[in-house]
């Protein structure tokens, strides 16, 4: 299963990861080798086998819809790269 340079670029875009152009062939090679190991799975008949999403097959635990947490914005924003008036600042998004 060989991954092309174009597929590496596409996947890195989906994952929002910058990859420098010179490393694309290296990533393509490494990822292709990893994908090759997945071919072994095709030898197994999984017709009608339910997928495992939780190792103990337990459902999502729910709780009462009541307030239990306090506002800790200041503590959480103390480590933010850039904030003002309680808002996180990023480069302009809207023209």
């Amino acid at each position, binding site marked *: 299963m060989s991954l092309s340079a174009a597929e590496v670029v596409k996947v890195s875009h989906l994952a929002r990861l910058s990859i420098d152009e010179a490393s694309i062939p290296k990533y393509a090679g490494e990822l292709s080798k990893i994908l090759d190991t997945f071919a072994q799975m095709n030898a197994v008949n*999984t017709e009608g086998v339910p997928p495992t999403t939780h190792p103990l097959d337990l459902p999502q635990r729910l709780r009462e819809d009541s307030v239990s947490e306090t506002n800790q914005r200041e503590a959480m924003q103390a480590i933010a790269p850039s904030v003002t008036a309680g808002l996180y600042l990023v480069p302009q998004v809207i023209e």
Partner: protein
Amino acid sequence: MHNLTLAEIAAGLHAKKFSSEEITKVFLARIKQFDPALNSFITVTEEEALACARQADAQYAKGAAGPVTGVPMAHKDIFCTQGVKTSCGSRMLDNFIAPYDATVVTRFKNAGMVMLGKTNMDEFAMGSSNETSFYGAVKNPWDLARVPGGSSGGSVAAVAARLAPVATGTDTGGSIRQPAALCNLTGLKPTYGRVSRYGMIAFASSLDQGGPIALTAEDAALMLNVMAGFDEKDSTSVDKPVPDYTAALNGSLAGLKIGLPKEYFVKELDPRVAAAIEAAVKEYEKLGASIHSISLPNVHLSIPVYYVVAPAECSSNLARYDGVRFGYRCENPRDLEDLYKRSRGEGFGAEVKRRIMIGTYVLSAGYYDAYYLKAQQIRTLIKMDFAEAFKQVDVILGPTTLGTAFKLGEKTTDPVSMYLNDIFTIAANLAGLPAMSLPVGFIDGLPIGMQLMAYYFAEARLLNAAHQYQKITDWHKRIPQNYA
């Protein structure tokens, strides 16, 4: 004093043979002396440790000390520690001061244990050699030219070199057990849901479990007593009572049924490891256990299944690192997309990026059914194999690794060859079963471990089997040459 176990230190403190401050200073001095060569710590919290030790001594003076009050320990740098740098071995979190404590950290604080610092690890827990850390590789105290294993390499190297009596680790595909085996320690991965994941930086949410790394099964039991238990804040935490894991240690093994999976004795297994396992089997027979051959027909698929599922889950969990709210942010972002891409591209190392990309690929349109769904179905088959096996036996025994610690740099150019290191350990994470590694011998001066697995929530049985073996063997007492 540095060669004392957690149990021996606790006994010494209770008998007033030494104070917590004294023993904490012993370990802090050893860290200063030995860690520059090992690189097992990312952060040493000397001031906080001494303050905590003095508080522990005050508890002893009042007669209010608990079972493990005042005993020093280290935390893998994957557990959030309030006010203390928590890096997860990554540039992405190099500037991250955790605003809260992980539940595991809180429990050890409440038990009065003294945190010496945060240990080095493979970046975001992705690795089997502790070579992917932003802070540099950790060295194996048994041979500084070799890896300690990973991803909990720092915790394991620190305990093996007697820089800390015990440490916490995490295990997603073998990251407690494999390094424990390569460094002559006892490490346990609990049943999924046994130990809270709140504040434990997530890699693969259906596989991750925190657990103890120690010199003995008895110490692992003492640690698990503190770590285990239901936590409201972890939605996957299981509400089951926690037994006293030390209570079952001394039970007789007469009548214990041990299974040896025939699929584990592969051609790639070093025959000297196989011989050590066979010798251990004889010891267990002396203890009254009976040995049975069992089959886990789908276990060879653990590697492809894991390398589909874990990267898929990691691609989701690591999406939060976007340079906006915390962690690394690139310089002069041109626009929002550039902010995301360069913060992540620069903040993450190569192995993390590889896994995020594999995960993104297998979850993407057109590939989800062929890879992710298929892997989850095979995961069900692997779970069913174990359920069948545990109808016939109580404990499954086998090697933890294919061989001894490999040399630094030996496997870094081929990710697939690195992944094969996890061949014996991964299945326990896929099935959610408890598993541990303990010392079983040496090959050319390097340690090897055996793995024990049990059914869900049967940690007490594992610890019992390990403890009884440690009473009639002394592999676990050996110390690496320069650290005695």
